[in-house]
């Protein structure tokens, strides 16, 4: 595998206990990725020739200020958006060559999304919101199982309007992981939450990553959160300006901001 060769200087820095054995498989292989938006007369370079590999089972935190291009990168990785140039390969498949139908199938089978504003269906209970996704999946877990994993087994029959923001976000995580996706993409999952509930949500994400081994990418502008990651990417003006591996993952309890 070329994966280890890509970051030769980083790998030896990793301290014990190593969370995964090397050599590890690259889930995403991103080459010369650029994205240019046209906003009226103005061209916005959201991503400028990004090269990147992301590895199986890693919990990656993507840091950046607003407008840095981190959401654009996440959306392209999740098959929600297409780049202006460059390629993105997911498990060997070229996402940049896929049409809308293929991207829908990709999202359906391989990706779990968690959004800043939860995006739950208000007319469905927690269990039903999860079931909505498990019913269109090939090998899902039971909705109850997914809810138990985020600590909401007893809230399964509540509607979103009857739950707190943190609880809603955990339902969203349960909904995202119930299909056993290959990657879990979280866009500012704590952005709309207070400190305590934010930590509960991060804990749920860390648990999922640990127990299921799902490759997880968390976008945040909160640098403290980076401590929970295996790998930290910092993005600025469309470039990846920092790429480092944490010697050890901090537990959520240790985080404070």
């Amino acid at each position, binding site marked *: 595998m070329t994966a280890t060769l890509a970051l030769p200087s980083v790998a030896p820095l990793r301290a014990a206990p190593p969370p995964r054995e090397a050599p590890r498989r690259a889930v995403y292989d991103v080459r010369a990725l650029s994205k240019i938006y046209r906003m009226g007369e103005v061209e916005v370079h959201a991503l400028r020739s990004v090269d990147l590999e992301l590895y199986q089972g890693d919990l990656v935190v993507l840091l950046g200020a607003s407008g840095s291009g981190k959401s654009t990168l996440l959306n392209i990785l999740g098959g929600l958006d297409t780049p202006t140039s460059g390629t993105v390969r997911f498990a060997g498949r070229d996402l940049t060559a896929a049409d809308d139908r293929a991207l829908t199938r990709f999202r359906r089978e391989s990706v779990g*999304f968690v959004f800043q504003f939860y995006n739950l269906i208000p007319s*469905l209970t927690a269990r039903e919101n999860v079931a909505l996704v498990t019913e269109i999946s090939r090998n899902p877990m039971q909705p109850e199982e997914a809810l138990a994993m985020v600590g909401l087994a007893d809230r399964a029959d509540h509607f979103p309007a009857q739950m707190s923001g943190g609880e809603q976000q955990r339902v969203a995580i349960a909904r995202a992981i119930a299909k056993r996706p290959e990657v879990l993409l979280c866009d500012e999952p704590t952005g709309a939450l207070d400190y305590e509930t934010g930590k509960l949500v991060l804990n749920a994400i860390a648990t999922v990553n640990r127990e299921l081994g799902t490759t997880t990418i968390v976008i945040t502008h909160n640098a403290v959160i980076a401590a929970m990651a295996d790998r930290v990417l910092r993005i600025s003006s469309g470039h990846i300006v920092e790429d480092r591996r944490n010697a050890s993952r901090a537990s959520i309890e240790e985080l404070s901001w």
Partner: protein
Amino acid sequence: MRALNRKLLRDLRHLRGQMLSIGGVVACGVAAVVAMGSTLQTIDHARASYYEHARFADVFATLKRAPEPLASRIAEISGVAAVETRVTAAVLLDVPGLAEPATGWIVSVPTDREQTLNRVHVRRGRWPAPGVGNEVLVGERFAEANALTIGTRLSAVINGRWQRLTIVGVAMSPEFVHEVGGGGTTMFSDSRHFGVLWMGRDALGPLYGMDGAFNDVALSLSPGANEQSVIERLDALLVRYGGGRAYGRDDQPSNVVLTNEVKQLRAFGIVMPAVFLFVAAFLVSIVLSRLVATQRGEIATLKAFGYHDHDIAMHFMGYALAAVLLGAVLGVPFGAWVGSKFTALYVAYFSFPELTHHTSVGLVALSLTVAAASAVIGALAAARAAAALPPAEGMRPPSPLVYRPLLLERLGFTGVFTPTIRMVLRSMERRPWRAAASIVGVALAVGTFVGGTFAFDVAMYMGDLQFRVIERADLSVSFIQPLPARAFHDMSAVPGVSRVEMYRSVPVRLSAGHRFRQIAITGLEREGTLRRLVDADGRTYAIPPAGLVLTKALASVLRVAPGDTVRMELLERGGEERRVVVTALLDELLGTAGYMEIGELNRLVGEGPVVSGAYVALEPGAESRALGVLRRLPSVAGATPRRAMLESFEEQITSMITLTTTVVALLASIMAIGVLYNGARIALSERGRDLASLRVLGFTKREVAGMLFGEQAVVNVLGTPLGLLMGVGLAFLIASAFDSELYRFPVIVTPRTYLWGVVMVVVAGLGAGIAMRRRINALNLVEVLKTRE
């Protein structure tokens, strides 16, 4: 332009699909008012001005024979303004190009002076010349139906002798605006086989031995005269001359048909617009409520800047009025066009010297007022909500809707629905009134379609019943005057005849108390099979051996029941009186009629065994041969083939079906599309964020569209059967409006009509879906992740 108005215009452009669909429904309501109203006004106006201009008489009477000087005694009756005496008679006609004989009604006209009443208007050609015996004017309908031109020659049996007649002109008269044949009183008369002729009095009188005498008189009344007392005095004067009872305009056959038609138009003109404007009000209400909900922040901002509550309310009223304006722009010309088409249809049935369709300014104003009122009512709740929104609250997002498990789930039926179905059903249950009104909207569309087109099912049923079940003779032959019963043998001897049944027809005036009607009692053979007593449901009855059978309609006019005795005055015998017991009532479709067993009727009249005509069954292919022989029999007044009557009936119906069905289907589709499209647009606006989220989660466009249209599908599935029921209800309503003494209007709806109603909504639903497809494709998946609702 004020900034707020600029916002209104921009929003309207943004909402153009919804505005167009609402405007379309408003346009239908406006068009219905304008179309029905203008047709009604046109006919009403044409009738009033024609009656006045042609001096249509107020009172009519027929008698056997009276000397002309009696006219001046009639004129002396207090309240009588003018008197016109005539000679009238039924004639048998041999028309070029027509295989079977036609019958006519011939009326004398003066050749030496102007007519005082019922002035005949010569459309083409000239007035019959004085002293020339064979010149006639013919009625326009009859002339058109048989392509008769000036100079065409006809043969007619007048008073038992063949006469050659020459057409010198084509004419019309207020007495025959509708050329009513043989006492028939429906619009579906047979103009090929019945016509009106006018002949100079100096020529016609002598042919009937009426030189210096008359057998028919028409009067006009002076203003304020009492019609009833004039009729009584006239009757008293005419009774010794064999006068039947005189009658007023209300019983004048042509006028009765015209009055009925106007009545029907008025009923339609109220029901149809009401349905459309109700739906328009509902659509305005849901679209504006949603608009106010999405513009909370804007409303709050405007208020924060100091706009008054009523400015905001008026701003939202502006959307409703824009829909009315659009509706008016589309609806008024469309309605005027449909009105002109309707009027053109009436031209085929009613002869007026001028029937120019006219849409009055007042009517347009009325239609707009009604439409505006419905839109304002629809907008009221939304405008009030916008006005009442406190600015501080408007700045915050609305509190989330509280959902709960479905009623069925609360009752214990859990796990029967998929999450998708739950989403659809819970959002409907959350806003039950809106779901209900949408269902009612679809139901009204289906109902309008069924109710608007079922009349043709009925007409076809009536035609079928009349010409296949009731009248089963191939030919119906009528004699110039009653003949001895041995005429049976003459009929049986006609080549090709396989069966003959004789009948007797006695014109009478039936009365019970002060109520009366003039009809002909038909005497039928007890064992007869060619002319039967059949009720509205198609059940056949035997004629009772004794007593009189009345149609239910006639019994209700006379207020009599089986067992009651009615008085019968024999019009052919100068009003001699008989009494007869009503033994049965028949729920017959057409007309007010009475039946008796033929022997019993003859005994009652006291003229011995005589017959008025025959029902004849023919061997296959014998029709033209039999008609050829019958035409040369001087005693035969008319011989009408059933086939010809049925064909002419069906032809007339078909010509009306096409226009009406097309217009009704178009209007109903516009209504269905309005309801379904706006429903889907609002669902998309409310749930667009949810649906985009689902797209992100990997749901396909098709799956998301399924969730969006799920609600519309439920509305359709519930609304359609309700609509079919409503259609039947509307049909009953229309039928009861159409129901008259002249004919009963049953409610018959064929599966074909139901099926078309269903097809119409399904197509409308698909149309709404196609219109929405672009919007589903354009759901912004990235944007939805970044925004809080």
